[in-house]
């Protein structure tokens, strides 16, 4: 079984030049950075807040905060990783405001029964996603990932959906590398387990009616 192919990240050679120009007051250069990353920031924000309006606010607030604090970006990490850190914090603030009854923290380390390996593992159908329409599949995937604790969901989205490396994810979330790895493993296993309800291979003659 081969390893998962990592996403190829965009070339960053000219990125520092754009950041330098933006620091010097070139709003056009900053606009280019917005153009490069707005989709990613929106997706991350929507995954964390689970709310479209909040995600729109997060995109604006995160880029404005980045612009106002460009002087603090020293170029030790990639601009994108630095931006993601700002966006994740903005998104978590939104989530806390919306759900004040439940403290939301990235340090949250949730133990659940789903962590252990089940004794009977049902295999999936080949190409299970093709059993559903695109709209149905989207609904299943959204509902499934929304069931994860925010700390797991965020790590999974940065690593596996956005393609950040373990080190970049740790940097963006201010977590240790072992903490990222442990959350990622559990997020992946929990999603797999939950998706099995939809994708499980059905015995012949036992077709879904």
């Amino acid at each position, binding site marked *: *079984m*081969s*390893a*998962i192919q990592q*996403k190829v990240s965009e070339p960053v050679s000219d990125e520092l030049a754009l950041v330098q120009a933006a620091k010097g*007051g070139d*709003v056009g250069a*900053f*606009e280019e950075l*917005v*153009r490069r990353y*707005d*989709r990613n920031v*929106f*997706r991350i924000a*929507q*995954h964390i807040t689970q709310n479209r309006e909040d*995600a*729109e606010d997060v*995109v*604006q607030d995160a*880029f*404005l905060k980045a*612009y*106002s*604090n460009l*002087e603090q970006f020293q170029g030790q990490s990639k601009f994108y990783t630095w931006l993601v850190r700002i966006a994740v914090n903005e998104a978590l603030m939104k989530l806390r405001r919306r759900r004040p009854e439940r403290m939301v923290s990235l340090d949250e380390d949730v133990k659940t029964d789903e962590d252990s*390996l*089940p*004794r*009977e*593992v*049902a*295999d*999936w159908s080949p190409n*299970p*996603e093709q059993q559903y329409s695109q709209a149905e*599949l*989207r609904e299943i*995937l*959204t509902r499934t*990932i929304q069931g994860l604790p925010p700390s797991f969901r965020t790590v*999974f989205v940065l690593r*596996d*959906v956005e*393609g950040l490396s*373990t080190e970049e994810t740790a940097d963006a979330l201010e977590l240790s590398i072992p903490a990222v*790895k442990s959350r*990622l*493993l559990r997020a*992946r*296993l929990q*999603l*797999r387990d939950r*998706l*099995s309800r939809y*994708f499980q291979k059905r015995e012949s003659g036992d077709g879904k009616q």
Partner: protein
Amino acid sequence: MKCSEFLQELTNYLDGVIDARTKSELEDHLAWCHNCYVVCDTTKKTIEIYRDSQLYPLPEDLRTRLRSAIVSKCQARKKAGPKQV
């Protein structure tokens, strides 16, 4: 190798960040343990399905609106001076 040990290494294995010896031990285990094979295979599919799913796309009109709001606020801040937050 026990199933629990396999599970601990699953993320490193799927990410391809594992030394050759551990990799061959994991693959020996996969060859005879059907449960772990299925968990490994379907976890990989889980990741691929999410990666390819394009959940939450940003529509072009919304994108344009957000970008022009950001740019005009940046310009306002520039005029107000660099220390304004």
